[in-house]
C-alpha cells in the first residue's frame, strides 16, 4: 500500500519537473551565446526561402468578409482590395487612374456625354478572373444589379445612387445612364468600395440570398494580383499569386492578412519585432510611435484624405432657458447672442496655435489647416492660410476695435452686456480633451471663458433623438469633431445649404449642424451641381469653402490622416488616403 502512494508522489514530482523543463527549454536554447542565435537566424532565413516569399499585413480590426458589399468596414474593403479590382482607382493625390478600364472617360475623349447623363467605360482586353474564366461587361452590369437590389442590403449602394441603368454595349463596353445630369460621374466602380464581382460566381446570391452565400462571400473570385485561398472569419485571410492577373506577376508567393489585437501591439510587431511587414491605422500616441520607430526596423507612414477636425460654431441660441427651442433655427429668429457677430469667432480662430495641436497631439496623423475642404490639392483654397500663425495680440486688438470690451473688469469681455462665456462639447477621447484644454487656455487670454464638456462617443454620435447630448442637437455654443469629403466634395458641401439645418421638424436629420444659412452659399452650390469636372468646378469648391470658413461657421483645426507602419525592407508601398491602402499591393516587393 505504502509503496503505491510514494510512487504517486513521484509521478507528481515528475510532472512538475516536466512542466518546468517545458517552460525553461525554449528559454535555455538561445542562451548559448550570440553565435547560436545567429545560426538560428540563418536557419530561419533558410526556412523562409523554403516556404516562399510571404507578406504579412496586420490589421488590428479583423476582416469579417473580404469585400465591401456586405460589410462596410475599411478592414473588409481592404481585405477585398487585395484580390478585387474596380474599373479605376484613386491614387494618393486623388487622381483617377485606370485599373480594369482602358482609360478614364471624360467629356474631352467622349466617354462622358455633353449633357452629363451617361458615362461609357471600356474594359482592358483579355481580362480573366482568378479561376481563368473571362471578365466581360456583363460582370460590371451584374455588380450594379447585385448592389442596387434592396434585399441584398449592400453596404456600398450609396455609390450607385442616381444611376438609372448600367448596360453592356458589347463584351468590353459598359454604359452607365444617370437619372439626372451628374457632373461627377465617377462614384460607381471607381475605388476599392465598388470593385467588380463575378456574375457567374454570384449569380444565385442576389437579394435576400446574399445572406446564405457562405462560400461566395468568403472566397470571391478576383482579377487582382493575388487570389484568396483561405479565409478565417474575423481572423485571417490568406492569398496566393494570381496566375491570371492582367499586370506584371506579383512578387510575393503568399499574402497573409492577419487581424485582431490592438493598434499599439500591431505597431510593435512591425517597428520593434519585425514580425509583420505592414500594420494599418495605428491610433497610438505620437510619442510612443516615435520611440518604436527609433528601433530602426520600420517606418511610420501617413495617408491623408479629406478629414478635418474642426470646431463648429452654433449660429443659434442654445441657452437652456429656451427649453425645446434650444438651438432651433426658427427661420433665423433665434440667433446666437454673440457668436453670430463675426469678429468674435474670428478672434477665437486667430488665438489658436494649430501647429502646436497637430504636432503635439496628432503627430504623424495631423497637419494644421485653415480649410474645411483640405484636399485634393486642386480644390484647396489658399485665401485662409493666415490662420496658420497664432496671433493672440491681433485677436485682442480685433475685439477691442469692435467694441467687445471687458467693462466690469472680471477678465471676461462682454458683447452688448452679455459676458462671453461659452460651452464647448466633444466626444470623450484623450486627444480631443487635450485639444479642448489648449483652446480654453488660449481663449482665456482673449477674454473668453469656456466650459468644457465631453460625452461618450456612442452617445454623442449615436443620434438618439431622445438624448440632449448628441452632436445633431448641438445644445452648446461650440462642438468639435471630424468629418470629411469624399474625393468629389459635392456631397460634403451639400450638407451646409439652408435646407439641411437640423430641427425638431426633421428629427434633427440635416447635415448643417452649425445651423448657418447663407443665400450666397446656396446659390453657388446650385451652380456646382451643374458644373462638370474642370477649372470652373474647382473655383466653385474654393468659393464655397471660403464662405464657410470666412463666415466662421466652422473653425478648422487639423487635417487628419491615417497612420500605418511598414518594414524598411518592404518596397513599393504608396499609402493612399483616398482609396484602399492595399490599392497597389501588387507592386509591393522586397
Amino acid at each position, binding site marked *: 500500500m505504502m509503496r503505491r502512494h510514494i510512487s504517486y508522489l513521484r509521478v507528481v514530482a515528475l510532472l512538475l519537473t516536466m512542466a518546468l523543463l517545458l517552460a525553461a527549454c525554449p528559454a535555455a536554447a538561445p542562451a548559448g551565446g550570440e553565435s547560436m542565435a545567429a545560426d538560428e537566424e540563418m536557419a530561419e532565413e533558410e526556412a523562409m526561402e523554403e516556404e516562399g516569399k510571404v507578406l504579412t499585413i496586420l490589421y488590428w480590426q479583423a476582416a469579417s468578409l473580404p469585400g465591401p458589399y456586405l460589410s462596410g468596414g475599411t478592414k473588409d474593403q481592404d481585405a477585398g482590395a487585395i484580390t478585387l479590382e474596380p474599373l479605376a482607382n484613386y491614387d494618393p493625390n486623388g487622381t483617377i487612374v485606370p485599373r480594369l478600364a482602358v482609360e478614364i472617360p471624360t467629356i474631352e475623349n467622349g466617354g462622358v456625354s455633353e449633357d452629363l447623363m451617361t458615362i461609357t467605360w471600356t474594359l482592358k482586353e483579355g481580362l480573366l478572373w482568378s479561376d481563368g474564366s473571362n471578365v466581360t461587361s456583363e460582370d460590371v452590369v451584374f455588380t450594379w444589379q447585385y448592389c442596387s437590389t434592396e434585399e441584398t442590403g449592400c453596404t456600398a449602394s450609396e455609390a450607385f445612387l442616381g444611376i438609372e441603368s448600367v448596360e453592356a454595349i458589347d463584351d468590353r463596353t459598359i454604359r452607365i445612364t444617370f437619372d439626372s445630369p451628374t457632373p461627377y460621374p465617377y462614384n460607381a466602380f471607381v475605388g476599392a468600395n465598388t470593385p467588380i464581382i463575378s456574375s457567374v460566381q454570384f449569380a444565385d446570391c442576389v437579394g435576400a440570398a446574399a445572406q446564405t452565400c457562405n462560400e461566395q462571400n468568403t472566397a470571391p473570385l478576383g482579377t487582382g494580383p493575388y487570389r484568396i485561398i483561405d479565409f478565417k472569419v*474575423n481572423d485571417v485571410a490568406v492569398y496566393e499569386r494570381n496566375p491570371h492577373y492582367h499586370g506584371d506577376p506579383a512578387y510575393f508567393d503568399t499574402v497573409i492578412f492577419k487581424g485582431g489585437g490592438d493598434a499599439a501591439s500591431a505597431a510593435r510587431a512591425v517597428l520593434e519585432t519585425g514580425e509583420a511587414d505592414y500594420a494599418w491605422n495605428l491610433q497610438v500616441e505620437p510619442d510612443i510611435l516615435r520611440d518604436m520607430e527609433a528601433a530602426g526596423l520600420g517606418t511610420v507612414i501617413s495617408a491623408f484624405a479629406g478629414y478635418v477636425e474642426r470646431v463648429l460654431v452654433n449660429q443659434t441660441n442654445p441657452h437652456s432657458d429656451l427649453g425645446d427651442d434650444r438651438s432651433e433655427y426658427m427661420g433665423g429668429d433665434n440667433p446666437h447672442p454673440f457668436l453670430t457677430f463675426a469678429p468674435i469667432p474670428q478672434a477665437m480662430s486667430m488665438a489658436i496655435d494649430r501647429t502646436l495641436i497637430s504636432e503635439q497631439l496628432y503627430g504623424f496623423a495631423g497637419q494644421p489647416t485653415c480649410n474645411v475642404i483640405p484636399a485634393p490639392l486642386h480644390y484647396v483654397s489658399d485665401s485662409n492660410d493666415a490662420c496658420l500663425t497664432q496671433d493672440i495680440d491681433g485677436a485682442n486688438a480685433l475685439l477691442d476695435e469692435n467694441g467687445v470690451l471687458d467693462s466690469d473688469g472680471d477678465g471676461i469681455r462682454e458683447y452688448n452686456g452679455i459676458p462671453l462665456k461659452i460651452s464647448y462639447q466633444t466626444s470623450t477621447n484623450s486627444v480631443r480633451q487635450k485639444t479642448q484644454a489648449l483652446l480654453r487656455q488660449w481663449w482665456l487670454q482673449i477674454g473668453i471663458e469656456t466650459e468644457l464638456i465631453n460625452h461618450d462617443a456612442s452617445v454623442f454620435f449615436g443620434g438618439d433623438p431622445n438624448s440632449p447630448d448628441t452632436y445633431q442637437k448641438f445644445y452648446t455654443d461650440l462642438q468639435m469633431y471630424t468629418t470629411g469629403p469624399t474625393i468629389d466634395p459635392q456631397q460634403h458641401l451639400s450638407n451646409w445649404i439652408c435646407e439641411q439645418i437640423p430641427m425638431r421638424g426633421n428629427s434633427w436629420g440635416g447635415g448643417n449642424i452649425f445651423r448657418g444659412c447663407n443665400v450666397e452659399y446656396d446659390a453657388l452650390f446650385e451652380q456646382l451641381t451643374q458644373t462638370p469636372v474642370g477649372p470652373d468646378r474647382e473655383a466653385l469648391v474654393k468659393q464655397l469653402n471660403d464662405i464657410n470658413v470666412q463666415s466662421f461657421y466652422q473653425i478648422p483645426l487639423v487635417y487628419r490622416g491615417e497612420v500605418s507602419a511598414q518594414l524598411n525592407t518592404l518596397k513599393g508601398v504608396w499609402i493612399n488616403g483616398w482609396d484602399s491602402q492595399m490599392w497597389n499591393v501588387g507592386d509591393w516587393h522586397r
Partner: protein
Amino acid sequence: MGQYLVRRILTIIPTLIAISFVIFAVLDLAPGDPTSALPETIRPEIRQQIRKAMGLDEPFPVKYGLWMRQFFVNEPLSLIENAFDIQIGDGEKRLRVTSWGSRGVPVMDMILERVPQTLWVVGLAYLVAIVIAVPIGVISAIRQYSIFDQVGTFISLIGYSIPTFFTGLLMILLFSVKLKWFPMIYDTNLQVVDWRSFVEQLRQSAMPVAVLGFFQAAILARFTRSSMLDNIPMDYVRTATAKGFRERYVVIRHILRNSLIPVVTLIALGIPAIFSGAIITEQIFRVNGLGALLIGAIQLNDIPLVQTVTFIFACLIVVFNLIADVIYGILDPRIRYS
C-alpha cells in the same frame, strides 16, 4: 443517485430555455444596431435596407421562434450531416443561424473553427496551472509559515492581483521585443505536421499559456493551501498520526484526498471558462479563440453570434455544475444524493 441524476437533467431543460429567452431578450432590447459599425457616410435609407436584409425588422416573438428553431433543430441537423457526410431532408434550404458581421457565414462554423485554438491554449494553461498549483498548495500548507510558504504566498498574490493584460504586455516586451525568443503574433494558420512545426506551435503558445497559467495557478494554489489547512487540525489526521503512519502517508492518503474534494469541484466548475476562452489574453496575443470571437462580435453588434456563443457558454456552465455536483458525491462518501 440515478433518480437524482434524472431529476437534475430534467430541470436543465426549462433552465436552458429560460436562459435562452433572457439572453435573446436582453440582446434584442439592448440599444445598438449592427449598422452602427458602418461608415458614417452610409445614408439612413441604406442602413434601413441592410437592417431589413438581416431580418431585424421582424417582431420579437418571430425572431425568437426562428432562432430557437434554427438553433435547436437546424444546427444539430447540419452538424450531423457534416459529421457523417449524409443528407437529411432538404439540407440546402435549411436556414442556419448566420452572422450579421460576416453575412452568409453560419455562426456554428465560426465557433467550431475557434474551438481547437481555445482548447489548446486555454486548456493547456489550465493543465499547467493544476500541475504547478496543487503541489505548491500542499507544500505551503504542511510547511505553513516556512520560507517556501511565504514565497509561494507572495508569488500567488502577485499572480492573482496583476491583470493578464499587464503580464501579457510585460511578456511581449521582454520575450518578443527585447530577447526575441517568442513571436508576439499567434499564427493561426500553422499546421502541426512535423517536429519543427510542433516546436513552432509550442513557441507561439508559450507566452499566452504562461500568462493564463500563472493567473490560474495563483488562484488554485491559494485554494489548495487553505483547503489543506482546514483539514490538518482534524481529528482523523490526529488519529492517523497516532497510529504511527509516516507524515508523507498521512498527507497524501488522508489530508490531500480530503482537501482535494473542493479543489476538484473548483476545477470542474472552471472548465466552462476554458471554452469561453480568455478574452483579454486571446486579444493580446491574437489567438483566434472563442473569447476573441465573442469580443469581436460584441464590437460589431453581431447579435446572432453573441446570442449563440453566450448560450453555448450558459449550457456548458449548467452542465458542468451538474458534473461538479456528481463528482462531489462520488468523491465524498459523506454526501449521498437521493
